[in-house]
């Protein structure tokens, strides 16, 4: 089924079994005078073009790698329920209550920078979406929540989001006193 030379077979096996990338010099050493490493590597690389595995060379040497375009499909599927990180939850809360809002405004409320990853995560989950640009220098993106956000949190509309005032003397006051002022009194 194959027209592979012995040299090519040997190099293929060597690169497959080696725990690290292999230098061309090392490959030439294995081949001895039987063949020229560079030529063998070129043939082998061409042979694997279009495969699910590709032959790559880097400064470290030559190695087989799975084709990058397959990474997503090969990903280990982790079916455990996901929770939002504290940063994501805070960011989402600011967007929900202050929308439409720029990243800088979110940062002002949270008091810390909002990493790109957090916004990406919320975007990917379909909880937020861009809502145009704010007409100030730099025209930053304005963020808002999506219908999916309402779905996920079981809200009929954004008006159903509890307002701070509604809780002012209730639950929150008690909780706040308890939480905010450990040094107090």
């Amino acid at each position: 089924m194959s027209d592979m030379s012995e040299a090519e077979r040997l190099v293929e096996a060597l690169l497959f079994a080696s725990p690290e990338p292999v230098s061309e010099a090392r490959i030439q050493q294995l081949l001895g005078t039987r063949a020229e490493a560079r030529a063998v590597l070129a043939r082998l690389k061409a042979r694997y073009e279009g495969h699910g595995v590709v032959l790559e060379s880097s400064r470290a040497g030559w190695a087989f790698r799975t084709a990058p375009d397959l990474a997503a499909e090969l990903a280990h599927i982790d079916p455990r329920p996901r929770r939002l990180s504290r940063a994501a939850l805070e960011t989402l809360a600011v967007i929900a209550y202050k929308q439409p809002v720029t990243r800088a405004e979110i940062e002002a409320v949270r008091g810390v920078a909002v990493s790109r990853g957090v916004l990406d995560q919320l975007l990917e989950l379909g909880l937020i979406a861009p809502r145009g640009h704010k007409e100030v220098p730099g025209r930053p993106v304005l963020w808002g929540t999506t219908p999916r956000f309402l779905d996920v949190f079981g809200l009929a509309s954004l008006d159903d989001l509890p307002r701070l005032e509604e809780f002012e003397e209730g639950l929150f006051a008690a909780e706040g006193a308890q939480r905010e002022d450990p040094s107090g009194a």
Partner: protein
Amino acid sequence: MADGLGVSAAEDEVLTVAVAGFSGPLDLLLDLARRQQVDLRHISVLELVDRYLAWLETARRLRLALAADYLVTAAWLLYLKSRLLLPPPANDPEAAEEAAALRGRLVALDAIQRAAAWLEARPRLGRERLPRGMRERLPRRRTGPLRVELAELVRTWFHLAARDQRSRPLVLATSRPLSPEEALQHLARRLTGHDWHELAAFLPPLGPDPFARRAALAATLVAGLELARRGEVELRQPEPFGPVWLRRRR
């Protein structure tokens, strides 16, 4: 291998013991039996007993330390031999059965040893057949349902809002532009003599940030204009967009 040494003379048998080391009397018996060069199922047990005793005698002469089970086996073999040699009508049918059982055990062990040798000769993983050497970490794709609660979101917002009202967190400015007031003070301090100087020469020490530098330059220009308005300095710009020069008025 233990059974690999063809041995005929006593001296060679010493070598066998010393080099190979049998794994027990049955293994030794099998080795001796193989030397009869006949099908193990038809081996002469009498001959085998004699060979075993001869081997043991050699070992004893050479003061080789032997495990006790070799001697126990020797005693059993001697007894078996004596029963096998009884003439009819006194002969012992049980002795014949025991001899057959011994042959059976030798056949079974022989087969297992051959099977072991067959396994040993297989192209083994990690020896003749190598697995992929490199460990590739496949990415992880989280597919589980999102677990969130409205209460958690609301609580988070309330805490943020409360923090916003009561105590804004201290924000440390990493780079703050030079204010015109600061530029004015700085410029006033640095103005000595009555020579023309480029405006840029009056900038305070700055980091590498180009925006901070431009902001500081702008603030210093404003400061220069303010001093000119007060009649304390003169400004000039010989060419459009060129450097601005400044000197203290006489």
